[in-house]
C-alpha cells in the first residue's frame, strides 16, 4: 500500500502528523506488532529534522506483507558531513529549536537504530533524502 504526506517545514505545531498517520495505519494492519513503535519513532525523528532544518518535505510510505519502506525527501540546506551528523550528540540546530526541546543531536542515529536498513543521501543547498526499511519478520 502506498501513502504520501507533506511535511510543513518550520511549523512545530503540526509536527508528528505523518508519524501519527503511519501509526494508525499500522495498528489497523498489524495490531500490536513490535515493529510499529520502531518505524513510528524513526519517522517522527525524521519529521523533526525536516521541520527544524528544511524548507519543505515529503513522506512516501510503502507497506507490503514483508516490509515497511519509508522515504523522507526534503528541500533544504542539506548535510555537509553526513558521517559527523550521524554521531550521537552532534547538532547544528539553532538556539530557538533547542529551546523547544529539540536538536539534542540524537536524531539521525536514533532513526538508524530503529530501522533494519537505513540509507541517507544529501546535497548541500538542495536537500536530504532518507530511506528507512523495517522488516516484519
Amino acid at each position, binding site marked *: *500500500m502506498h501513502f504520501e504526506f507533506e511535511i510543513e517545514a518550520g511549523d512545530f505545531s503540526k509536527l*508528528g502528523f505523518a508519524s*501519527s498517520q503511519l*501509526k494508525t495505519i499500522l495498528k*489497523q494492519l*498489524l*495490531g*500490536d506488532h513490535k515493529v510499529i513503535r520502531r518505524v513510528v519513532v524513526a519517522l*517522527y525523528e525524521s519529521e523533526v529534522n525536516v521541520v527544524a532544518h528544511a524548507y519543505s518535505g515529503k513522506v512516501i510510505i510503502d507497506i507490503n506483507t514483508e516490509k515497511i519502506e519509508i522515504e523522507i525527501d526534503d528541500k533544504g540546506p542539506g548535510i555537509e558531513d553526513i558521517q559527523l551528523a550521524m554521531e550521537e550528540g552532534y547538532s547544528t540546530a539553532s538556539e530557538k529549536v533547542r529551546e523547544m526541546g529539540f536538536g539534542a543531536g540524537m536524531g539521525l542515529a536514533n532513526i538508524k537504530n530503529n530501522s533494519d536498513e537505513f540509507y541517507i543521501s544529501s546535497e548541500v543547498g538542495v536537500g536530504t533524502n532518507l530511506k528507512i526499511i523495517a522488516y516484519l519478520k
Partner: protein
Amino acid sequence: MDQKAFHHALKIQKDHCIGCSHCMNICPTEAIRVRNGKAELFENRCIDCGECFRVCPVGAIIIEQDDFNKIFQYKYRVAILSAVLIGQFPEDVKTSQVYNSLMDLGFTDIYEAEHGVDVLKESLQEYALKNENKKPLISSFCPAVIRLIQVRFPALVDNIVLKHPPLDIAAIYYKQKLIDQGVDESDIGIFYITPCAAKIAAVKSPVSEDKSPITGVINMDFIFNKAYTSIKRGDYNSCTECKRERLSPEATVWSLTNGEADNMNGRCLAIDGVHNVMEFLEKVENEEVKDVDFLELRACDESCAGGVLTTTNRFLTVERLKKRAEYFKETEYSYENEPKSILRYSEYLEDCMVINKIKPRSMMKLDINMAEAMKKMRRVKEIMKCLPDVDCGACGAPNCQALAEDIVQEQAVINHCIFIQKIFEKKGIIDWEQSHEIMKNIWGEEKLNRKC
C-alpha cells in the same frame, strides 16, 4: 480481536435508552453504535471509563453493582473504602459519624484502601530503579487507563508498573490479618466501595490475575446516600469515636491528581481525564516525550474525586481531602503509639504485590491476516471518498471513518449514510420509502413516525 469477553460494569438498559447517541459521540474508544433506536456496545472495545454514563440524559446506562445483601453471606463483612468517600461529606460531618453509619449498615470492619499506599510507596521506588529500561513507567492505579492502553496503545503495555494498586494491597492485608486472628477464610467478605465503574470491572475480571482479592463491589453513591441520610437525620449527632487507623497524609490524597506523581522520584507527570490521557499516550508512543520517569494517568478529571459514582462536586472533594491530609500532617497521631499495622505485613505483602505481565489486546486491527487487512484498508479508503466527512452520526456510527470500517467488517452498509441515501435517491437506486426504512432500522420506529 476475537478474545474472550470482558466483564463490563456498564450496562445499557435497552428499555430506557432513547437512542440519542450522546454516549456514542463521547466514547473515547468508539465502542458504541446506535441500532434500532438503541445504543449498542462493542464489548471488546469498552474500557469502562464511564464517560457514557456521565452523558446519558435519561439514566439508561447503569453501573452494575453487587447486591448489597450479599455482604450478609459473610460473618466478617469488611468495607474497603476509597478515601474519596470521606471527601464526599460536608466538612461538618465527622469521620466517626461516617464510620458509625457504615457499621450500622451491616459492615463489621472498615478499612481505607489507601492504607495500601504505605507499603506500596517504597516498593514503587524500588521497582522504578530496577526497571530503568521501561521508562516512562505508567502507574497501574487506574484500571480504565490500563484497559485503554491494552486496546489502544498496545506498544505501551510493558511500561505499566506490575504492582497491585493500593486497594488490592489493603484487601489482601486485611484478609490475611483476619485469617491470622483465627478467622476462617470462607467467613470473610471483602467489599470495596467504589467511586467508578472501571474498578468494578477490574474486580470482576482482573487484567492479569485469575482472581481479585476483593469479594464484591458496592457503588459509592449508594453508600453515600444511605449514610448521609442517616447522618442528616441526626442518628449520629452524639456518636462514639470509632477505633481506626489514620491514613498517612500522602495516602489521603493518593487517589487525587498528583497523589502518586508527587511521591515518585525523578521527572513525574500527572495527567487526568481520558481524552487528555489519550492525547499524551500518543506522544509517548512516538517517543516524542523523552526522559520522563513516571506517569500517573487517571481516566477521570480530578482523578477519583471525579469518579462517575461520586455525588459531591469533584473540586469540593479535592478541597476536603487536601484539608484532611493537612490536618493529619499537623496533628500528632493520637491513637496507640504503635506503628501502622499494615507495615507489620510488609514482607508478606511485597510478595503478593506483584501482578502478572499485562497482555495487549489491540482492537484496531482490521483483520488477523495482514494481506486481508490491507484489502480492507483499501476498501475503507475507497468508501471514505464517497462519505461526506461530516461526522454527523446519522448512520449510527460516531464518524465517517468508523462507518467505513464498520462497512468493511460487515457491520453496516454504505446506504446507512444519509448523504449516500440522497445521492442514491437522485440516481433512482433507492426510493424515499427504502430510505425511510433504513433510517428506521438505525434510529427506531418512534423517531421516524413523529407527527410533524
